[in-house]
């Protein structure tokens, strides 16, 4: 297995690489550069690094203005502030006029160091997904993060990127190509389909191995593109495996689980189990403490899958 790399590291370095090729890329920071890793861009391109201070709403407005002059602004902060704090600025200044603004939320879901509830973004996907014109992507590992940042630079329109803080193993193939609205089957299976994104994909894959020992053949899908969602891969999973489990680092209301339910309910109703944070606020603690507290360890997921398929 190759080394674990944090998506935020890959994000910071990819911005620098793309910044060398494309002088229109500018990076805005609301006082979190060392954490989001836009500090690399700050070192390489001080002229194109725009610190706005602790002023997220202003940052989104400035990004909107810059985009009208042909710049490709990446507005960066923690995911909680990149969604909740700036919801209306994103909606009206960026998404409504379909401006070319990239909004980047770092430190996602429960996994925010030990910063706790105020800094945990359990609502960002729900918020961003319900804003028309927005694209919402949560890359799973370093390779996918690179591909997704490249995509975001080339795509003309508002994009929300959810970038994880902590190291992840290689999940997608080295030669992986990201396509808007396309998910990736990581593992074939016929008894049940597990759909996940971001940090939870690793535990979901482990859970698939655990249930295999119980004779359950689980398909696993990496649903990095949460909007537009890959309807065909979901319908196919519903048809072929009959049951779907979603696993997300987000409130089960409005996130990946909801997105999958919407497709399944409209197009091919089958039973679904949503695993995630069950409409409660988070807590301070390590990732391991969070997974234990909110029942998101591989063994917790496996147990849920076994109960669900057994019924």
């Amino acid at each position, binding site marked *: 297995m190759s080394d674990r790399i944090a998506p935020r590291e890959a994000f910071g370095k990819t911005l620098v690489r793309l910044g060398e090729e494309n002088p229109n890329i500018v990076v805005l920071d609301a006082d979190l550069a060392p954490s989001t890793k836009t500090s690399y861009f700050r070192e390489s391109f001080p002229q194109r690094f725009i610190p706005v201070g602790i002023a997220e709403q202003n940052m989104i407005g400035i990004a909107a203005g810059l985009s009208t002059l042909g710049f490709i602004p990446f507005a960066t902060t923690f995911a909680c502030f990149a969604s909740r704090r700036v919801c209306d600025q994103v909606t009206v200044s960026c998404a409504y006029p379909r401006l070319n603004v990239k909004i980047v939320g770092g430190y996602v879901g429960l996994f925010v160091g030990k910063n706790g*509830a105020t800094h945990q973004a359990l609502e960002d996907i729900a918020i961003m997904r319900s804003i028309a014109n927005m694209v919402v992507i949560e890359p799973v590992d370093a390779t996918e993060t690179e591909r997704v940042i490249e995509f975001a630079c080339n795509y003309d329109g508002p994009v929300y990127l959810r970038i994880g803080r902590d190291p992840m193993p290689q999940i997608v193939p080295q030669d992986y190509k990201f396509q808007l609205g396309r998910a990736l089957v990581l593992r074939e299976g016929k008894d049940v389909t597990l759909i996940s994104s971001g940090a939870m994909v690793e535990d979901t894959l482990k859970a698939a191995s655990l249930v295999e020992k119980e004779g359950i053949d689980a398909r696993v899908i990496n649903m990095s593109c949460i909007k537009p969602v890959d309807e065909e891969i979901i319908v196919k999973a519903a048809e072929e495996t009959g049951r779907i489990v979603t696993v997300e680092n987000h409130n089960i209301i409005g996130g990946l689980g909801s997105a999958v339910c919407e497709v399944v309910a409209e197009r091919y109703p089958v039973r679904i189990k949503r695993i995630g944070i069950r409409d409660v606020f988070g807590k301070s*603690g390590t990732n391991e403490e969070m997974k234990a507290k909110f029942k998101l360890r591989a063994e917790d997921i496996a147990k849920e899958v076994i109960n669900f398929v057994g019924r």
Partner: protein
Amino acid sequence: MNKKPVERKKLEEIANRLRIKVVKMIGKSGFGHAGGSMSIAEILTTLYFYELQVDPENPAWEERDRFILSKGHAAPIFYAVLSEKGFIPEDILLTIHHPDSPLQCHPDMRLCPGVEASTGALGQGLSIAVGMALGAKLKGKSFRVYALLGDGEAQEGQVWEAAMSASKFKLDNLLAIIDYNKLELSGKINEVMPLEPLYDKWVSFGWHVIEINGHSFTQIINALDEAKKIKGKPTLIIAHTVKGQGVSFMEDKVEWHAVSMSVDQVKEALKELGCPQEEIELTLSQMKEE
């Protein structure tokens, strides 16, 4: 309000103990906001041991003064002063940052006695304080409301919306303090997003403004006394401080905003703060347990 004369030496001792507790908490947890805790040791000490009319036996006492730590990330020293005052037992301090602890990374008013508002997303505390001060006026109550903000925090637009409203509502029962330690998370305030002329800005927003050295008990006390005499407008204290004050290797260093501390660093910091040797040993052994 009748106040006992406070011994300056006693305040100094308390402030020092708060700093020691902060180092122990961060040492044990392996994480914590050090710099912005250290810069407000004297301010919190003076508030809790000279100024605030609060009752640790009855945290919900209706007539109590309200204090809001708007820069919620300075929770370690806030918890330290709450324990010093008797709101929470000292022995829970080392549970900070645990999922089941009342001492979450940012203060939670539903979990921790003495916490008046849940903060941690910067820029929101002063508005809450305005609401409390306005509510006191509407109810004819005489308690006062205090909010402590970071200087980086003062870059948030909401702070200025709150400032505008507080003077419109003539909230002379409201006192805000800015911990002007000249640093935020990513660098120097002056480079990231300058605040100057800060004094003039607040004056133009209709506030009475007092500028002090935020590590001088005499100046803090005088400013608090002066604020009470001001009628018809809110008061702001601009407290010039040093981020990390009291631990030389942290002082004025942006890297010491949120940190983990090595055993050696904890030892060095506790030594400098004059912590007794047995306590240092105990802290180090607790760190190694983790």
